[in-house]
């Protein structure tokens, strides 16, 4: 009996432990974040009186990989403004939005922080957490309207300084191309023919897989879409309901995904983004569709062969558009006690000195100032050349307006991702996938429901 009682008690305790474990992380999170974030505002108070005021600003970000580069940038800023020190304090990317929100809600947010484009950032502005930048000098002269608009209200009131764009392309192994007598393809048919040649020669043409899901969506599908739909103007037609999301242009994009399927690695369903990068770096696959942010990784890992980048050619009769995704901006915390110093830093972000520091310390991340600096990294310069060769550039298809699905409905990102994978797994034809994509959006996005 005693034994049984013991067993029973231990089970009960276990059950409650599991349950509270479910609840715990949520309440823990703010507690953990507090010490690091409160440090900054506390310091200037202590050293208020003597000499020139020493101010330390924290800069929140999701770019954990870029600490070294940001240290160079903030050091350059400190040299110019010796009384202001900026501390780069990044958070793990998947946790960034939730962590930042918690910090802001509890009044422990960083003085400056990376702001996501469109709805996610707009929410913070509407809630009063991001300071308005309508009085920041120079912001409208330094950046084009297209660069500013992801972080501005409909009336054009800006609330963050755009700093980074990323591009997309096809990384290719020049040695493998040469060994198989392949030239860089200039049409989609040539690309498919080249892939067939490689496959016949026993080489995996593309390294991409679908285990991590996001990469096939962001760096493959969303590279094809702009050329098919006609860039920014084409995208607006979808947003306004002038085109349905299962239009022939969208079906054609899904068809390109379907065309690629035979050329993906064996077992692509369980091949992760990391595996893909390794396949390419080790020379086991001839090409990989990827973002410009991978330049640094490939320069470090893919050292045994010559490689370069080209842009996936448009379908016959279509103009070439490039997915040049405006990815990040920096805003100031409206509740920061050092708002003035934060504004000084934001102004620094408009300078050509910053653009040069960013472009050269973080190859593959492109500054958004109108005067583009000369980039020292040759591959980064190649990516920039895509922009000037193309008819136009645009951001990724789903970012504007299409992510803000209400609870219980599917946002465009998730729907596109699911349907792309369904096509690759032969569960849907391109037409069926486009129809499903349209139906998911029509369920909550009014222009899609009323489209012609």
């Amino acid at each position: 009996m005693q034994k049984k009682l013991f067993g029973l008690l231990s089970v009960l305790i276990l059950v409650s432990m599991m349950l509270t474990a479910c609840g715990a992380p949520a309440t823990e999170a703010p507690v953990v974040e507090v010490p690091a974030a409160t440090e900054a505002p506390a310091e200037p108070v202590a050293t208020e009186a003597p000499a020139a005021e020493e101010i330390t600003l924290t800069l929140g970000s999701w770019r954990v990989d870029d600490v070294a580069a940001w240290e160079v940038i903030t050091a350059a800023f400190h040299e110019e403004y010796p009384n202001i020190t900026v501390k780069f304090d990044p958070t793990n990317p998947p946790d960034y939005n939730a962590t930042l929100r918690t910090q802001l809600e509890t009044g422990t947010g960083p003085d400056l922080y990376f702001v996501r484009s469109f709805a996610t950032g707009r929410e913070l502005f509407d809630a009063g957490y991001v300071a308005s930048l309508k009085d920041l000098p120079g912001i409208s002269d330094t950046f084009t309207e297209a660069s500013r608009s992801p972080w501005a209200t409909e009336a054009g009131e800006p609330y963050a300084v755009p700093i980074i764009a990323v591009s997309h392309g096809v990384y290719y192994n020049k040695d493998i191309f040469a060994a198989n007598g392949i030239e860089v393809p200039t049409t989609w048919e040539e690309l498919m023919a080249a892939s067939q040649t490689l496959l016949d020669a026993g080489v995996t043409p593309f390294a991409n897989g679908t285990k991590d899901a996001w990469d096939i969506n962001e760096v493959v599908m969303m590279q094809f879409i702009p050329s098919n739909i006609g860039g920014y103007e084409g995208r607006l037609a979808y947003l306004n309901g002038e085109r349905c999301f299962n239009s022939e242009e969208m079906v054609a994009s899904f068809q390109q995904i379907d065309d690629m399927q035979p050329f993906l690695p064996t077992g692509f369903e369980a091949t992760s983004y990391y595996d893909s990068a390794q396949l390419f770096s080790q020379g086991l696959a001839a090409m990989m569709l990827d973002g410009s942010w991978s330049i640094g990784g490939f320069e470090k890992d893919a050292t045994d062969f010559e490689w370069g980048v080209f842009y996936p050619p448009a379908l016959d009769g279509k103009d070439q558009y490039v997915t040049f995704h405006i990815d990040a901006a920096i805003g100031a915390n409206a509740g920061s006690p050092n708002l003035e110093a934060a504004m000084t830093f934001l102004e620094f972000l408009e300078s050509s000195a910053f653009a040069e520091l960013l472009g050269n310390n973080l190859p593959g991340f492109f500054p958004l100032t109108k005067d583009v600096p000369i980039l020292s990294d040759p591959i980064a310069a190649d990516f920039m050349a895509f922009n000037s060769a193309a008819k136009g550039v645009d951001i990724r298809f789903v970012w504007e307006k299409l992510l803000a699905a209400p609870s219980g409905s599917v946002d465009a990102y998730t729907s596109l991702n699911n349907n792309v994978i369904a096509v690759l797994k032969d569960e849907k034809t391109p037409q069926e996938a486009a129809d499903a994509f349209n139906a998911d959006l029509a369920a909550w996005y009014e222009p899609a429901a009323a489209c012609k």
Partner: protein
Amino acid sequence: MSQMISSGKRNAGLLSNENRRRITWVLFLLPALMIYLTFMAAPLFDSLRLSLYTGEGYNPTKFVGFQNYIDLFTNPLWREKFFGAVLHTSIFFAIHMVVQNSLGLLFANLLASEFKGRDLYRTIIFAPATLSVLVTGFLWTLILNPQWGAVNKILVAMDLKQWALPWLGRENLALPIISLVSSWQWVGMPTVLFLAGLMGISEELLEAARIDGASEWAIFWKIKFPLLKPIIGIVAILTFVDNFNAFDVIYAMAGAKGEPSYSTDLLATLFYRTGIAGEHPVGIPNMGMGAAIATITFLILMTGVLFWLYMSRRNSEEA
């Protein structure tokens, strides 16, 4: 209370002593009770309260009554995700019951007899349970990797290329495979519990059976198995509770989204995505809905545990 004191006054001596002992007993429980209330009961009830609210971020403030639950069961998307998670969790649990616990019983029986290298085998069987799930999950992901994993390399070397599948990339394979990996890792737990139970069975019983000419098979089913029943019950309920809370092995091998295409999405991963992490690329959690999912998980667990309590009480009354 006053009655207790007055009665103590009247019969000063034996009874008051007993009363005092009873109060001391309660005092000893107090610290543990306080800890339990603060760190377990209070958050649990707060989580129940939270499930009635909605709003973004970590402080949902808008009271919506049972709307989260209504959405969970009536909105087609939520319903599909939720019942998918319930189904996957049940399959996950069933595979553990069949594979992990049957193997545990088998291993315990083998280890209960004397043979050379017994300790070594016991260590080998128990060793995986001492490793972090994230570590074993990551290692198995590599072993099963279609590009450089050992499993597919061996299959190809054996000329069984058609068997070299993307194990973690197919909807119908991923969940059973992950369940088997988890069973492999935890098989040591039921083994140890069953072994302890077998050791507790009196040698005289077994000897008497052998003298009567019972085969080993008959001894197992007629003597050992009935005597192990209470332990089987405990193992079953522990497996149930562990599996309906399982998160880490899925997170390590299939990611928080339960890839591929949500086919490995368990209640805990659904809860994590909904209530804590949010989904890429927006990543803003819906804590109210997350709490509602946690509450339903709690109800499922409670039903299971109460059922087990009822069964074990009935069994002990019968015996």
